[in-house]
């Protein structure tokens, strides 16, 4: 149950990341050819681009540091123990 919720949250973040990535890579929906108005001395699409970049940065920060979806140092010991056990097992099998 808990892993399903995690999967859904992960999927949601992934979709948000992908949408914002496309917007960081192309001015679809907020840019236009030719003359445009200025916001804070910049063309409006450039200002929105920097804003989208900032929003993506903040969401990445939330994902990496404020959710239970990313890797944390507290989990490292358990993960390393499990991986070391597998590596030792494989080494023993190879030697035999």
């Amino acid at each position, binding site marked *: 149950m808990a892993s399903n919720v995690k999967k859904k949250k992960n999927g949601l973040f992934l979709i948000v990341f992908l949408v914002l990535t496309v917007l960081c890579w*192309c001015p*679809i929906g907020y840019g236009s050819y030719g003359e445009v108005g*200025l916001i804070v001395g*910049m063309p409006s699409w450039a200002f929105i681009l*920097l804003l989208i970049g900032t929003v993506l940065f903040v969401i990445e920060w939330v994902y*990496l540091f404020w959710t239970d979806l990313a890797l944390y140092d507290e989990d490292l010991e358990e993960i390393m123990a499990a991986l070391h056990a597998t590596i030792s097992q494989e080494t023993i099998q190879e030697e035999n």
Partner: protein
Amino acid sequence: MVAVTIITGICLVSVYISYVAFRKGFTKNADDYFVAGSSLGYFVLIFSLLASFLSAFSMFGMASFGYRLGYGSLYVLTANLVPLGFLWYFMHKKTFLLGRAGKWMSMGAPFGERYGTPMKIILVLVVLAASIPYLVAQIQGIGVMLEAMSEGLISFRMGLFFVPFFIALYLMMGGMKGAAWVNAIQGVFFSVMVFVLFFSVMMKNGGFLPTMDLVMAKHPTLFQLGWAGGKVWSYPMVFGMASAMCLGCVCFPQPYMHAYSSRSARGLKAMFLSFGGICLVVITLPTLVGIAGNVIVPGLKGVGADKIYGLVASATLPDWLAAFAVAGGFTAAMSTVNGLVFGNATNLSVDIVKTLRPETGSSELIGLARMFVAIIMALCVAIAWNPNTPVAELSIIAFGTVAVTFFALWGAYYWKRATATGAILSILVGVSLNAGFFFAGGKAMVLFPQASLFQLNGFLAAFIISGIVFFAGSLLTTPGKTETKSLKLFFHPILTQ
């Protein structure tokens, strides 16, 4: 003379830092020398990764882009790199975990463990072949900059020896720890100097808004997309440039080396996240400086525009501070050379020599890596000797060539059905296409949208085809012993929790 003193000072400080790392015993065994004993904290990691990627192009090139092409340049190296925060995390989380568990030290390790030795060797050679033209371009840039900054006191060819000698010296002495410390200090230095230059340039005309109003009145096209009849900053051009630069960054050796060197998961995440955030600010500023340069040093054309960063620094700062600002761009070039030379020397000694001669001991491995640092540096200086050597032009395909390893890496970590044949074929096809596009249509075919490629640039076309080859190749072949055996570790249930 001021500039030469500053550059010499930077080189000597870098050597001293590396000497400290050496004296403190941080290069005693292979683990210490290649991955700093996985002991780097997040501050050093953040600025070391940043500096190892940002070359002189990020400062001088982006200012020149801003000067000539305006605000559309923001799609080249600023907001488009923010996605690296999650892309690097997803691609290299397992590099960090499996690397720590398996004591990996080089870029080839995950490929070798997952797909076998041939894949590992092909990868190392591909990355080396892509890196050399890029390194030559950086070293030539250093020679040109040094000649200009010293007003001819240090000739181009003397410059080729002068700085690479110091770089080789501190890489050989201090290993990963020394290189990371040097990179971090150089990264902080050039970031600070970019801020200093930005504020002085904008204050020259009464602030950011009045400066931009002046530029707008004289050059309105710099504020537009799709100008020059839709040719400059068209949507396909923007997408091609933005995605190419970002995807290329995922697969270079630097993120692998830094992932192995990280002390903690927190440091790893902070490093990956900060890169895009810092680029969003630190590279936007030189771009804006370049745009503002149109009202401070008007009328520069072609190659002349490449000097805009130094010219606006001279026009708005006292001489000594202008020299520091330009030296900032210089250190950016130095730190990129550090990162790439060290990454490749590690790959050659660990992935090739150690694989072919498993009995090679730890100290012998360090000795070999030091020798490879010297050989790579000497080779690059030799190629750069002729300032008109066309090989530097090839640096344009470095990102595309390395980016085609993306699918093999993704498959290694996230697709159980991936096979060595699919991975090897995808890399070989991708590299051949990049080279083919370059030789058929030059820079333009690699960088700009082509009608014959459905409005994609050569980079993206090669990237997509390499992906198709990877999936088709993997589905048409069956996983061998190595791939099957590797599943236990690469897809361990603990890694998916």
